[in-house]
Structure formats: C-alpha cells, structure tokens
C-alpha cells in the first residue's frame, strides 16, 4: 500500500482540519460557527439599539431581561453549549426588539399625554379670557 502523505498546509489541509474539528461535536470549545456568531451579533446590535432609544429609562424591565438573556447566551457559548447558545441568543434578539419597541411606545405615550395636557391648559386659558 502506498502511504499518502497528507500535508496540513494548503486548502485541502484546512478543509480536513475543519471537518475533523466539526466531527468532534458541539461540545467543542473552539470559536462558534459563523451562523451562531451572526446570531449573537444581531442580538448585540438590537441591545445597543435598545440603549439608544432610551430603554433603560422607558422600558427598564424589558431591557434588563434582554441583557440577562444575552449574558446567559455568552455563558452557554463559553461552556461550549452551542445549541443552547443559539437558542438563548435568538431569545435575546426578540427580547431586545421588545425592549426597543416598548421604549419607543412609552416615549410616544408620554409625549401624547404631555401634548394633551398642554392643550387642555391652553383651552382653559382661553375660556378664562373669554369670560372676562
């Protein structure tokens, strides 16, 4: 039998390495899959957006929830639990999206209330002046 020497350098070598590593299974501590990385990046972006729209003031509970979920996802990833990390990061994403929409909604409701209050005051002022 002829012995084939397989060298690690070159595209073929990297390919073999990747397959070998994947073959080891999800319980590997190696950097996450591109898919998982993308998922976690999406969740992180959504979290940033939540901060930007003022969720810490207007939807603190939802924001806290999303942050906690993101931390849990990162913990799972560190522990090599890729499936759990993916699930948790997907949940973190919707949690962050909810925080965003809750903050915007709360801000708008506050603005609407303020406008209606000032309108009421304005109307009363007019009524007073008319009666003079």
């Amino acid at each position, binding site marked *: 039998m002829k012995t084939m020497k397989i060298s690690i350098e070159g595209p073929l070598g990297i390919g073999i390495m990747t397959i070998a590593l994947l073959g080891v299974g999800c319980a590997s501590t190696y950097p996450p899959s591109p898919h998982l990385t993308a998922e976690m990046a999406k969740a992180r972006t959504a979290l940033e957006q939540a901060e930007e729209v003022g969720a810490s003031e207007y939807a603190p509970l939802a924001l806290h929830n999303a942050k906690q979920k993101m931390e849990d996802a990162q913990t799972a990833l560190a522990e090599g639990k890729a499936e759990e990390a993916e699930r948790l990061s997907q*949940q973190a994403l919707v949690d962050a*999206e*909810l925080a965003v929409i809750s903050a915007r909604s709360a801000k708008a409701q506050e*603005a609407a209330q303020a*406008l*209606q209050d000032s309108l009421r005051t*304005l109307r009363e002022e007019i009524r007073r*002046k008319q009666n003079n």
Partner: protein
Amino acid sequence: MKRIAPFLTICASCLVWAACGGPPANYVLLEEARSAYQQAQNDSAVVANASTDLAAAEEALNKSQALWQENADETQINHYAYLARQYVRIAEEKANLKTAENAIGQAELERTEVQLQARTMEAEQAERQAEANQRAAKHAQQEAALEKQEAERAQQVAQAAIARARELAERVQELEARETERGLVLTLGDVLFDVDEATLKPGGLRAVDQLALFLAEYPERKVLIEGHTDNTGTDEYNHDLSQRRADAVRRALLERNISETRIGIRGYGEMYPIAGNDTAVGRQQNRRVEVIISDEQGQIPQPLTMR
C-alpha cells in the same frame, strides 16, 4: 398465566398510548403563547399595525405546536413558544406606538387650531378695546365741547345780564330817577304843573312819556305816585291838590297804555316836606310829585311812614 395477562394488557396499552404521540404533558408556555396570539388576532389595531410581527408569532407558534405533537424536547417546544409570546408582545407594543403617534398628530392639529383661536380672540379683544377707547375719547371730546358750549352760554348770559344792567342804568339816567332806599324815585317838580293846578305842562308830559317808555320796557315794575305840597293853604286843600296832581300823572300813564294795576297814588299834602317852607325855593321844592318805581318783583320796599 392469569396474572401475567392484565400486566401485559397494561403494558400494551401503555405502549399504544406512548406510540400515539398524544399530549403527554401540558406545556404552560405554549398554552399562554397560543392564547395571547388569539387575543392579538382579535385586536383590529394590532392586526392593522403589526401584521408582520403577528405572522412571525404564528410561525413560531406552529413550530412549537409541531414539536409538541412530535413529542420533541421540552426545551425546544418552550423555546418557540417563548419566541411566539414575545412576538405577540412586540405586535401589541407596535399597535400602542401607532395609537400614541396618532394621538400626537391629532393633538398637534388641535393645538394649532386652539392657538389660532387664541390669537383670533386676542385680536378681537384688542379691536374691541381700541373701539371702546375710541368711543371713550369721542365721548370725552363731546363732553368737553358741551362744557365749552355751556361756559360760552354762561358767559353770554352773564354778558347779557351786564348789558341789561347797563341798559337799565342808562334808562334810569335818561329818566333822571334817583336810587333811594324805597327804590327808584322820579321827581316831577312844581314847574311841570300849572300853578295851583293839577294839569301837566308839556315838560311834565315829556317826563311822563319817558316814564311810560321805561315802564313799557320793564313790564314787571310798578309805580307808586305820591303827591306833595308846601304848607301854604289849608291841609285839606293841600291834600286835595297833591292827590289831584298824583292822579294827573296816573291818568297820563293810563293814556300811554300803562295798565292801572301797576299804578298806585297817594296824596300827602304838606305832610312830608323835603325842604324848609320858609323860603320860596324851599316851598317850590316841597311842591312835587314823587313817582316811586318798584323793583323787578313789583315790590316797593318801604311804604311811606311818618318822617
């Protein structure tokens, strides 16, 4: 053999039951997600404003449902149920946001309207105030004009009074009457009568003309004609003569259209001399007729009493 049969039956039924894949346990999260989704579906505002989120919720719900029916891992079933539940919440908040934005739009429209109303009202009030000020100014002007008119009138009245007084003084002077405590007194001297007669000579008549003119001009005045003599002759004779002379003046006035209600006569004879009867001059002075002219009220203040 008989004991094994029931056991085997139970085992078989268990196996059959397990094999059916029917609901082995109730997943609370799935139930909640399903119920929440139903509620959102019935909310027209949510359906109108967040159909994509509701669709995502439905997809997640269906996945969860399918996994549940396959009796898949609890973690997986709960995962999709959780996602579904959160999508429903997102949809609801999106509807709330839209409602609030509509309210803001509405309020801003109303505010513009109300501000316009306020500004219009202010303008109207300012206009009314300006009109009121104008009216007040005009009124003040009119009042000032009236006051000026009244002042002018008062001045005219005063001036007229002064003129009348001047006129009266002139008339009195023309009349050659004297101002006494009893009133104006016109003395018709002896020379104006025929000697020892009660006939007025032309000079006397001219004096009566003047008097008549005066009395015509001042119709409210009355006269009291008092005849006097010197002491020559009897009291009776003198009284008679003085009376007849006074009467002569009266008749002359009547002839000149002076009403008799305005004329009174007295004959005092020699009772009231004004000069000594020991001289001719004095006696002539005493031989007189005094016409006393009343004030404007027709009053002759002091009737002649014993002096």
